[in-house]
């Protein structure tokens, strides 16, 4: 190449620099918008953490710091990657892998959220509105088939954790370390945090009536779930899991279901479409 061909006048140089700069600005803007498409278009559906606002508001408010991730004792909350289509750095819960079992008691993720993307007014698990469980494969359900369940609910390699209060009130343990032996499989009902809470409240009421309860252990108002979330109901002679009004969509039933793929899955489309982040 001759030297003459390479020489540009000052004006030409300025012009090229200007065009390059336009390309840079448009390019960076374009790439940022590209990343938005699957998120705004809601291509993927996943549970958001407890207390998450209406999806649009949640996306606007989340500052993507992961403080909710850090406080979760069962590590249910993950931050979305580029390929997840849920917004880079925005938290979600894959409930089949690890559901939120409220073992933190006080909704720690909500308390940790610095921007109110998880609504601060929420106090109790029964107020959560993450979604609702749906029984999608009843024909495969062990209870419907009249079968029991023996062994580890999700196999020996499953890393998911749950709180088993009778074993350790404060530390969740691996589901794999807690084998079951059930005459009729009722794992989804047995492990439902709402149902467990209702049972605990009933026991407490009993103790209260006998006058044996420490003042500090007294529960707050509304702490007890007002409605049941799931039950096994006899439908034409088959014990079928039925989702009730009290379901908050935490996903524990989906996580614990030993059938592959799970008989119950979470659906957040309806509740997240109307929710303000909590039940009122």
């Amino acid at each position, binding site marked *: 190449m001759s030297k003459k061909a390479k020489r540009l006048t000052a004006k030409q140089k300025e012009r090229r620099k200007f065009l390059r700069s336009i390309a840079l600005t448009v390019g960076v*803007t374009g*790439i940022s918008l590209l*990343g938005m498409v699957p998120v705004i278009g809601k291509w993927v559906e996943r549970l958001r953490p407890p207390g998450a606002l209406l999806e649009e508001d949640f996306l*606007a408010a989340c500052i993507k710091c992961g403080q909710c991730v850090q406080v979760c004792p069962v590590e249910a909350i993950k931050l979305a990657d580029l390929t997840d289509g849920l917004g880079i*750095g925005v938290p979600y819960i894959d409930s089949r892998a690890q559901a939120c079992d409220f073992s933190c008691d006080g909704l720690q993720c909500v308390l940790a959220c610095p921007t109110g993307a998880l609504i601060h007014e929420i106090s109790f698990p029964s107020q959560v509105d993450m979604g609702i469980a749906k029984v999608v494969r009843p024909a495969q359900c062990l209870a419907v088939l009249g079968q029991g369940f023996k062994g580890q609910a999700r196999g020996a390699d499953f890393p998911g954790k749950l709180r088993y209060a009778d074993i350790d009130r404060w530390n969740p343990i691996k589901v794999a370390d807690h084998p079951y032996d059930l005459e009729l499989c009722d794992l989804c009902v047995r492990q439902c945090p709402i149902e467990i809470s209702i049972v605990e409240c009933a026991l407490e009421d009993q103790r209260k009536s006998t006058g044996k309860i420490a003042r500090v252990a007294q529960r707050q108002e509304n702490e007890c779930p007002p409605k049941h979330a799931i039950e096994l109901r006899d439908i034409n002679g088959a014990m079928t899991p039925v989702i009730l009004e009290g379901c908050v969509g935490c996903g524990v039933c989906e996580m614990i279901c030993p059938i592959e793929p799970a008989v119950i899955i979470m659906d957040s489309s309806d509740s997240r479409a109307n929710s303000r982040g909590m039940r009122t």
Partner: protein
Amino acid sequence: MSGIVESLRVLLGGAPRRVSKKDFPEEVQEMHKHKFADKERIEAIHIELREKAANKQPERWRRKRWAVLAAVNLLFLVSYYLDIQLLEGALTASRFAGFHMADLNSALQVMLAFKHVVINLIIGTVTIFILWWLLGGRTFCSWVCPYHLLAEWAEMLHLKLVAKGWAKDYHFDRRSRTWLWLVFVILAVVTGYTVYEAISPTGILSRALIYGPGVALIWVALLLLFEIFFSRRAWCRYACPIGLTYGFVGATSPFTVHYKLPNCYHEGECRKVCLVPHVLDTVLKGRAAEMEVDIGADCTRCLRCVDACPTGALTIKYKGPGDLL
């Protein structure tokens, strides 16, 4: 006051204004005139510079700065892994010993997108605003931002490749950054989504370090490759809205790099190492309109110029309340 206006104008991408020599104070005119009288002194400086180039010593401030940058970023990681709750969250928002902190650009994006601010975010934003105002605004960039560190390493490689003729350094108009800042402000308001956060290399890197690497790092890698082969420090110079936000904050900061004309022999060593050399236009021959000048808001206080200057013309200055205006 006019100093701040000029500083902001340069920050937004304007070319530094030249003051006509006739308008210089008399003593400054004299200083410029007699600058090169002391031939011996200048010869001595040249010898010193040649020696320095021959046996490269590590830069004092750069080492300290990298140590601070690494410490801050690793503190997030260590705090999470040891579960000591000392510094929770990521660079976008965090709690230090329980006290809220929020990155100013991330907080701005959230406020504009959400159109509602909770008290925790106000606390975090005000805390960080005061902190970085005191420390110099863009000090965040060179002392904390993890992308800055990677970009510095990429820059070293870039300079080597340019010297060999294997890479080019294309310049862009610095106003691109102002446009991008405005674009992301508007996009946040209009779309109701914190669009910039999706491509922020600062946020992506901070989260990758704390929560584990992800595919999003490809974007960071592409930016670094672009800087290595096509344009020196392009993201920090021409694109990053975080830098501009902190630039605004630092415009009135008491912490600046300070230039003393009498000490300067215009060797240009400072401008060779500077990330934002336009802030150092005042050190060019015959440009300084005053005996002492504070370097403008776009300066990241990386202090490489302080290390590079052979004659101590550039120093750190912490202004008292009386000096601020």
